């Protein structure tokens, strides 16, 4: 099976090892991964600020770049929501609507692809540990792929998943929101951190680079000592893939 891999902008800039691990997780299941060297960003920054014209241009660029019939795998629920759901909305009632719908059918968040399409079975090689999980808002409510991420965590036999009380509450990242409203964003992430601390876990996992940057950055600033890790780095570590 051939699949496209879309590394996302934060993935390319900050989380390159996570992208490498994500690709290895796909290869491990026998997938042949195509990485388009001209890939850029899904267009969410301009879309969420209401710049629909600019976003359409980025979306058209992506739909052209990833043409064909191969599935497009993204290690981020947020970008998945954008390319799978928001592109359709963006082109609603225009000549590109049908193209966006077809494109949407090929988009998968990685955990969803591993869990539902490839139905992976992992042999957990790690020590016993406790983790908690932060649901990214767009993964939860737009891409709707959180169940798969949790299924993968739960399938690891030495990992105990302890859910957050405020799991479904936004961490305050929201892309440009964290820059435009830093005080409110800080209040939101601080509440999230309190919740994480209350769980007494070794790791806080999430499958979204934006949320992780926000939560881990604020934890560091506040001197909170819980490790944060991207889901795909965590799985790779548990099953013995070296990053």
């Amino acid at each position, binding site marked *: 099976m051939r699949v496209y891999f879309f590394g996302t902008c934060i993935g390319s*800039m900050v989380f390159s090892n996570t992208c490498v691990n994500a*690709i290895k997780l796909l290869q491990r299941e026998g997938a042949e991964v195509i990485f388009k060297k001209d*890939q850029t960003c899904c267009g969410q920054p*301009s879309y969420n600020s209401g710049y629909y014209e600019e*976003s359409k*241009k*980025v979306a058209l660029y992506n739909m052209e770049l990833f043409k064909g019939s191969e599935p497009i795998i993204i290690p981020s629920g947020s970008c998945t929501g954008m390319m799978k759901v928001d592109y359709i909305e963006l082109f609603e009632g225009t000549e590109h609507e049908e193209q966006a719908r077809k494109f949407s059918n090929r988009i998968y968040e990685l955990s969803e692809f591993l869990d539902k399409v490839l139905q992976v079975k992992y042999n957990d090689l790690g020590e016993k540990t406790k983790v908690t999980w932060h649901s990214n*808002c767009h993964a939860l409510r737009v891409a709707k792929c959180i169940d798969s991420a949790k299924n993968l965590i739960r399938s690891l036999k030495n990992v105990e998943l302890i859910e957050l009380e405020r799991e479904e509450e936004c961490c305050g990242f929201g892309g440009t929101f964290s820059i435009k409203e830093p005080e409110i964003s800080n209040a939101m992430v601080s509440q999230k951190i309190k919740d994480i601390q209350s769980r007494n876990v070794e790791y806080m996992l999430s499958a979204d680079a934006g949320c992780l940057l926000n939560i881990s950055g604020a934890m560091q600033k506040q001197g909170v000592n819980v490790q944060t890790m991207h889901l795909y780095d965590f799985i790779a570590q548990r099953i013995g893939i070296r990053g």
Partner: protein
Amino acid sequence: MSEALKQKYHNIVSQKLEDKQLRKNLLSVMDTLKGNRKKLIASRFYDWEALREQGKTLKQKNLAKLDTLLEKFESKAKENGFIVHWAKNSDEANNIVLDIMRKNNINKILKGKSMASEETHLNAFLKARGLNPIETDLGEIIIQLIDEPPVHIVAPAIHKNRYQIGEIFRDKLGAPLESEPEKLNEIARTHLRKEFKDFKLGLSGVNFAIANEGAIWLLENEGNGRMSTTACDIHVAFCGIEKVIETFEEASILNALLIPSATGAPVTCYNNIITSPRKEGELDGPKEVHIIILDNNRSNMLKDSHYYRALSCIRCGTCLNHCPVYDKIGGHAYLSTYPGPIGEVISPQLFGLNKFSPMLDLCSLCGRCSEVCPVKIPLAELIRDLRSERVGQGRKGVVGTDSSTQNKAEIKAMQSFMQIATNPKKWRLLLAMADFLSPLSKTFAPLIPGLKTWTKYRELPKLNGNLHQKVSKMQGVIYE
């Protein structure tokens, strides 16, 4: 958007965030309301989602033929003996109340809960003319005593805890200091009974106006709504045009969605269905009932292919209860009668985008509001759409749309973003630069605007870029 307006929002947001008591009160009440709703839906409803779908469909169907429904409602209501008024805007609505008061020589009005009359600022309007509006809803009494607007659509004084309310009653009503809810209720009741004695004019809102019967339906929990609408000589009901629906069955469906969403209770204590003024031979009820049907730019919303859905709102307030921003800053920080997610959607449209556009930033687009809205208004989508109106890329039908809301620097930044994101060479150069500069970013972060705000509350991440080089060397990857 004007810097002064943005600054005004910034100041009030900071002020509310620093108010620790407010934050504590809001968090605790919102957690309770959310928890109650969740438990109730899980235990009492076997298919809440289907009910939501039904609510959404029926509201949208009714909005699609609102003009004929309004005509039908008017004619049926008139047949029943109601006096129906049409108000294009706040001023017209307030003047109708003023005329009724002057004609009947009345200088005091007792008000049940009505957000529409908050929207028209009726209290200030009447007070400026020497008349006396008195709130009778417990929450409204509390905030009227301290001269504040409602902080929440359903629970107007939810930002005050019982100890603070006890102090307000002591200071403003001369009551003994109490903090037990029963005792506080008793103080309010004693205070109100004096006012209810021999009052002539009562005012209320309308939850559902039923076109087929020409009747109005009011929900409340305290009984003061019943007093305000039945123990007076004249009753005036404020009704937004979108409250009109076709049948009682539809009202029952909406009622079943509204109460659990609002408070997590299965039903309200009082359902007041008013079908006419006092008829001959009847012993009580007002002799005259006026219904003021208020537009205030709602018909303009109705015209838009997306925004019309916001008129489905049944004012349950659950989007506020679930909003992670609202529970940090409270309703007053939105500087509008309608706060929270639904407020962000309707306030700019009712009162002008140029006056309320900064409130559109009080949202991280997490989408939780859309997820819980009982009539499935896509609130987050509409907030984003309104942002596009703000930058001049929408359908441009929102009132108060002008270039004053545009941020020139942001427009430039987004255009550059688009150019780089559609040009792979530039994009790769940007990635390479970021990777190269990353060791220095900590030093320069305070000088770069976006990074400066970011690093105020968070450490910078250790950039781990260079993805292209890594991937191009990976075995088995087709790098093309």
